[in-house]
């Protein structure tokens, strides 16, 4: 899963410690092997991503030590 953003996720993991030290809680914009910026909000990071790259996959990731999963009680979800 997440093959479309595999490189970007690897970049995030490789830079995670450094990013947490400086920018905990903010949102990183990542394309391929580059962290292109850090933003206060997710929408700001997405806007910058579309302005720079247009309609291609890119990763906006909140910089946190431990990722909290989103929870769903509905059994309508097929996963």
């Amino acid at each position, binding site marked *: *899963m*997440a093959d*479309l*953003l595999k490189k970007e*996720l690897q970049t995030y993991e490789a830079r995670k410690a450094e990013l947490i030290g400086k920018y905990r809680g903010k949102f990183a914009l990542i394309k391929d092997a580059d962290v292109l910026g850090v933003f206060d909000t*997710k*929408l700001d990071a*997405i*806007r910058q*991503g*579309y*302005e720079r790259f*247009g*309609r*291609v*996959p*890119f*990763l*906006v*990731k909140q910089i946190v030590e431990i*990722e*909290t*999963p*989103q*929870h*769903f*009680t*509905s*059994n*309508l*979800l*097929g*996963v």
Partner: protein
Amino acid sequence: MPSFTTQVPNLQGIGPLVEVRLAVGSIIEEVLRKDEQLVPTPILVNAMIDTGATGTVVREDIPAQLGLDPTGVTLINTPSSTDVECYEYLVRLLFPNRVVVETTVIGAPLKGQHIQSLIGRDVLRHGVFIYIGYTNTFTLSF
């Protein structure tokens, strides 16, 4: 305060279902217009307002119909799975009465044919959700 009220024949049995149009995010629309490209027509879906959902979900095939690429990855837990990676996409949710919410949604499989989206607490956090069981009506205000 923008709002809409919906009445369904059997609110307890069916749940708070509402027709929502899914459109590309405003940022994407701006980029498309600047490049003189066509803006995809919004897609009409049946959505259930789900207070048991942390975030909003759309059926996984819908983002491709809007020409969307992922802008993130998130982990989800469901009654049958944990830590499942899913893509996130930027969309606008166009509710009745011109109530518009821009948010990222999760693309995931949804069982059955009748519901294509779950409206989660990421949307509800901005508003007031009123569920009146004895009149089979519900209201969402922002």
